[in-house]
């Protein structure tokens, strides 16, 4: 446990100190709602390598409300003419204390037509620790141009260690300009919705 907290803090410190704010990057507002939490998340990206932010959430697992200070760090990116591949580290430390935290990795590979992604997250709250993993794949039914309304048809399989089975469900993702909306539904995890505004 101690090592994990040190790892999280260490990576957070690395992200903040080793990269000066040399680029006035984007800010993002996100709303997320699923069977585990309802949350509101703001993050700022000083560079494309990392973002820092605050997530305020209603934790449905432990029945409490608190905030996370969050860091997402780009471990690796590969750009090609037709694709982009990413691997990220993510972490968060709760305002209630260091013992309430999460960390994990997520990655994706994307072309204009196809998307494949995965993620793993360990959540520790001293009451009901759990891990969450998912895979997601999608296809764009048409290729929109810059500024058009974009649509993705996706499939997501998600497993939470508190649940007995995988939750498999379709996800629809739409975005235009700076706004993105994504929602899916399964019998196991019910609605999984995600709203995002970038500015």
């Amino acid at each position, binding site marked *: 446990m101690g090592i994990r907290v040190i790892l999280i803090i260490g990576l957070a410190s690395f992200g903040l100190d080793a990269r000066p704010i040399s680029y006035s990057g984007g800010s993002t507002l996100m709303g997320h709602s699923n069977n585990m939490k309802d949350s509101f998340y703001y993050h700022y990206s000083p560079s494309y390598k990392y973002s820092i932010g605050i997530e305020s959430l209603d934790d449905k697992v432990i029945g409490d409300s608190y905030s996370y200070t969050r860091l997402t760090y780009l471990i690796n*990116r590969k*750009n090609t003419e037709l*694709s*982009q591949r990413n691997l990220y580290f993510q972490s968060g430390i709760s305002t209630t204390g260091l013992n309430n935290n999460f960390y994990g990795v997520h990655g994706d590979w994307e072309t204009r037509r196809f998307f494949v992604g995965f993620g793993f997250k360990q959540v520790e709250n001293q009451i009901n620790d759990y891990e969450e993993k998912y895979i997601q794949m999608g296809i764009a*039914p048409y*290729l929109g*141009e*810059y500024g058009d309304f*974009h649509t993705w*048809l996706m499939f997501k399989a998600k497993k939470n260690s508190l649940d007995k089975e995988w939750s498999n469900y379709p996800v629809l993702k739409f975005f235009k300009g700076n706004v993105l909306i994504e929602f899916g539904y399964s019998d196991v995890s019910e609605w999984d919705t995600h709203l995002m505004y970038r500015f």
Partner: protein
Amino acid sequence: MRKILTILLALISLWSAANSSDTDHHSHEGHIHEKMIDGKKLAVDPDRFDKFLVGLEDAQVAIVNVQGMVCDFCARGIEKTFKKDEKVKKIDVDLSKGKVLIAYSLNEEIDFNDIKEKIVMNGQNAIDMQVVSL
């Protein structure tokens, strides 16, 4: 499992239908985008390029080949960054060809290293550039 297979089949069908329309080609003989620069044909979407040129006079356009620009969101930061540059008269993104179009005044010197740096800061890579003078 049957549900999953149904979803996958539906996705594949949609993709096949959409893919057939991707093979349409344009013919715009005589337009400026048909010019050759350093022996290379301009690889830009003709309609998009023509729209971009509307209202531009005494300008030069840098056509930058960018890797990793796979979605609208990826390109937003590029547009935002170049719009802050006072030397830039106009900017557009051609997602289908992976190009960024940047218009400058004719008397401006276009610095490819500066363009590369701005694009890297956004998380993509600029590979090469062609310049068209209007």
